């Protein structure tokens, strides 16, 4: 039977005392900062370890002595062949098989039919409409350049993920090796992946495709493993009793039964691919991302909004279609062949019609630049008007934030002695998880200090801190509003879901539009991006409060306010902390991307490493970002766990 009692906060006196002592020591270091020897303020030069040189040496060894270059060249040649095929089909690059480009009407009709098959008329309209929009807005070639890479990279990534996931499922050792790698890989910022790819592959679509595969494979591995693990044991037993061999059991029982998880993995691969392909413009990947980058750098707001809309539409279409595929359950069909396959027949008819139209009039094959519609003029006008209107407000906000919040805070972060920060982190670790967590925190924080990038890291930390604090201030109340009733909660979650599918790059358009190119724009972009998970987890945390606990509180005579403060929020807190954790991860990713607006943090250095193709430096910086994320992850999840299961370990 379910008992309705509030969980009690864990209380371990010993742990609390030690943590307090460590934190007190850190405070003493801060208070007597001016009397401290220089070695405690910042690590002395002699202690800085040349990690970058070591990594570069290892890479040089792998490249020159192990012949890794030959291997990567072979792989990249194979990828290039596939890319040429899709490029020919989608936008008519003159390569084998020389049949393209497929007229846009045919592709739009195909997308519409796929949408209809997966999710009915609404998805059909969305999918077909997106491609019509791309065509009539004259963005066809760029969009196809982007898609031609996704079409190659996503299946490769799925296959690689399935293979590695199966390996991890089959061999304990493989899982033990993969797990920490995946943890770090999923918290490495995008740019960290690009630098080695530039070194080994070069720049262009080929490099873009390969970096996309590498970036999008971790979630596929995770979902494959999860799917294989969660096949009901009776299904496997029934396969065994049917006399299946191991191979038959794998291909015909386990993998098909794990279909939903695997397809959710596919969905994540596609979304990660889109995000990466857009960013790969930094390494010379042509397409929508490159166009957006150029337009943003030239501050052409209207045109970049057009591209932004396209990217957002593509993201929504790809996400909805792949999710619809994941949840779609097989259903039986009856009747004659044509009836059972009517969607296929209609599609064939539409394709024929499309080709006929394209043959009749070139507009249906390709919309030329001068025929394309453009919203840029009116958008620029409206945006200009709005900006004129709110300029006093944004100006004041910018001034206020920069002078009174951002600069003082940044200086404070930089002012803190390294020794005090390390000690404080150890103290926080001890408070949440005892000696082990304290050591974990130090293991993540110390290498950052030793790498010599401490000041840059502190600037990144400060940006994330400010952005997440603001995101909490905005996101939690929004979440409270959203969780008021079930309909509204579902609506809010849908918005959050949709917003999370947008490639992070997109968030830069509105903030540049409003604030121009400066620190406030960076903070605003990071904050908006980081608010989404907070709203989402606040709503989910509040919705997850067991109804019998709410009822028992109501029967105890709690008012709505009391119910919220004393029952719902405490119970929702662990979930909220998980949201804050994700928010920090998002913020870290975004800070690094926002570097091209102009920051002074790790991201800026990473851009420099990218342009000088310095693998070692790029990796050290990437790992510094990853370690900050993993440390926050460890502390917050550890805390949420101990909260969720009091007395548990």
């Amino acid at each position, binding site marked *: 039977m379910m008992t309705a009692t509030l969980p009690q906060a864990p209380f371990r006196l010993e742990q609390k005392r030690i943590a307090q002592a460590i934190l007190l020591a850190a405070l003493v270091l801060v208070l007597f900062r001016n009397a401290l020897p220089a070695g405690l303020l910042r690590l002395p030069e002699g202690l800085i370890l040349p990690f970058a040189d070591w990594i570069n040496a290892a890479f040089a060894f792998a490249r020159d002595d192990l012949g890794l270059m030959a291997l990567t060249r072979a792989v990249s040649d194979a990828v290039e062949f596939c890319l040429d095929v899709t490029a020919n089909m989608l936008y008519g690059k003159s390569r084998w098989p020389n049949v393209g480009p497929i007229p846009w009407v045919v592709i739009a009709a195909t997308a519409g039919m796929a949408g209809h098959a997966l999710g009915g008329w609404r998805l059909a309209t969305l999918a077909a409409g997106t491609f019509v929009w791309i065509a009539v807005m004259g963005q066809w070639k760029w969009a196809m350049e982007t898609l031609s890479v996704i079409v190659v990279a996503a299946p490769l990534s799925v296959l690689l993920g399935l293979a590695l996931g199966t390996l991890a499922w089959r061999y304990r050792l493989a899982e033990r090796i993969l797990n920490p790698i995946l943890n770090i890989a999923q918290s490495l910022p995008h740019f960290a992946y690009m630098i080695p790819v530039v070194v080994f592959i070069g720049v262009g679509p080929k490099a873009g495709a390969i970096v996309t595969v590498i970036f999008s494979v971790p979630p596929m591995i995770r979902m494959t493993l999860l799917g294989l693990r969660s096949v*009901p044991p009776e*299904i496997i037993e029934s396969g065994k*009793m049917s006399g299946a061999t191991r191979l038959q059991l794998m291909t*015909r029982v386990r993998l098909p039964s794990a279909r939903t998880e695997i397809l959710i993995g596919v969905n994540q691969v596609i979304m990660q691919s889109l995000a990466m392909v857009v960013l790969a413009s930094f390494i010379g990947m042509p397409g929508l991302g490159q166009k957006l980058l150029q337009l943003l750098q030239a501050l052409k707001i209207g045109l970049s909004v057009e591209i932004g809309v396209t990217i957002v539409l593509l993201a929504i279409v790809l996400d909805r279609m792949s999710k619809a595929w994941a949840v779609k*359950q097989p259903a039986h069909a009856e009747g004659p062949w044509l009836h059972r396959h009517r969607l296929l027949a209609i599609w064939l008819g539409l394709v024929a019609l499309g080709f006929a139209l394209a043959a009749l009039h070139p507009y249906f094959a390709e919309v030329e630049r001068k025929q394309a519609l453009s919203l840029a003029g009116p958008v620029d006008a409206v945006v200009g008007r709005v900006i004129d209107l709110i300029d006093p407000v944004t100006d004041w906000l910018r001034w206020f934030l920069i002078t009174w919040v951002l600069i003082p805070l940044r200086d404070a972060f930089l002012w803190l002695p390294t020794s005090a920060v390390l000690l404080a982190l150890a103290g926080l670790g001890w408070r949440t998880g005892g000696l082990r967590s304290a050591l974990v925190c130090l293991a993540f924080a110390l290498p950052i200090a030793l790498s010599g990038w401490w000041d840059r890291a502190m600037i990144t930390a400060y940006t994330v801190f400010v952005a997440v604090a603001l995101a909490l201030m905005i996101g939690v109340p929004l979440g409270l509003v959203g969780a008021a009733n079930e309909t509204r909660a579902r609506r809010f979650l849908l918005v959050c879901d949709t917003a999370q599918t947008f490639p992070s790059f997109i968030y830069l358009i509105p903030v540049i539009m409003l604030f121009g190119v400066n620190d406030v724009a960076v903070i605003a972009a990071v904050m908006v991006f980081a608010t989404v998970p907070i709203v989402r987890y606040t709503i989910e945390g509040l919705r997850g409060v067991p109804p019998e606990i709410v009822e028992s509180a109501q029967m105890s005579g709690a008012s709505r306010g009391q119910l919220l403060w004393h029952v719902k929020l405490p119970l929702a807190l662990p979930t909220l902390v998980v949201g804050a954790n994700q928010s920090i991860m998002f913020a870290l990713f975004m800070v690094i991307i926002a570097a091209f607006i102009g920051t002074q943090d790790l991201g800026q250095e990473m851009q420099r490493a990218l342009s000088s193709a310095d693998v070692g430096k790029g990796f050290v910086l990437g790992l510094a970002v990853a370690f900050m994320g993993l440390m926050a992850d460890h502390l917050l999840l550890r805390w949420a766990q101990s909260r969720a299961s009091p007395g548990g370990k």
Partner: protein
Amino acid sequence: MTADDVVISCRNVWKVFGDRPERLRLMPQTTMEDLRATGHIAAVRDVSLDIRRGEMLVVMGLSGSGKSTLVRCLARLLDITAGTVAVEGRDIGRLGETELIDLRRRKMGMVFQSFGLLPHRTALENVAFPLEMRGQDRASRIARARDMLALVGLKGREGYFPRELSGGQQQRVGIARSLAVEPDIWFLDEPFSALDPLIRREMQDEFLRLKGMLAKTIVFITHDFDEALRLADRIAIMKDGAVEQIDTPERIVMAPATPYVAKFTEAIDRTRVVHAGALALPVDGRPVDGEPLPAGETLHALARRIVGDSRALIPLADRGRIAGLLDRKAALDLLLGPAA
């Protein structure tokens, strides 16, 4: 009973879960507490039993009594920790992977509590699955699967996917699949427990119909004592991994071996289980007059006639021969309770 008649034979079978249980020294007198002290859990404890050809053995026990684990040991879905399980004289613990797969492809069928159907295959493809595994050609396996579905009354539902079928229909698919390879040994692991009571009754009748048609060796697992009484030739009652009693339903009801078994039988209407023949006294020269009653009927079925009969000793006939005399007073005591 000759050795040929025994299809499955278990000798001192143990199944212990925990860290490296094969290093334990397991004796018949080892208790659960002994094992728990070393961090192990015994799901099956020193079970020895024989299942004869064509017999239906029902293994009955509450949840956690080890009955499902036992049947998985018999099919070697689980490797046992100690003891031997022999199927038709062959120790299945020693079979290699190919031999084991071959045994399952030819000799064994199994029905699962939550059906274990493959969600991505139609009813027809699910039934054809074991045939596909052993490499039978498409046309013949589809034809066979069609026949099996017709046998369980699912004609016309061949193209449906499991989630489009009701629980009872899904279990019919499961039954058809388990019978597709014409197994000699049929394992049923709580096949009707996930169904609601009305459907359960209907499926039991269906099962009895199939059982009558097919003549197989059956091991049937259930937690429902009524179901066990209704279906079984013999019942094995399990508690904490060990078999408390293995006997015919009648003997279990009339002579429970342990207080635990007795508890189950308390609430049971014995007259529905006990046959008139079980109360038969030897004739021993006493007079046999008038029309005999059939010895193979339950007392409940004969109640009206026993009450209306005026003889103190009613003759019983088994297949045309006098099998003994029924003491009317003893029968009435069972039917109506002892006279006050």
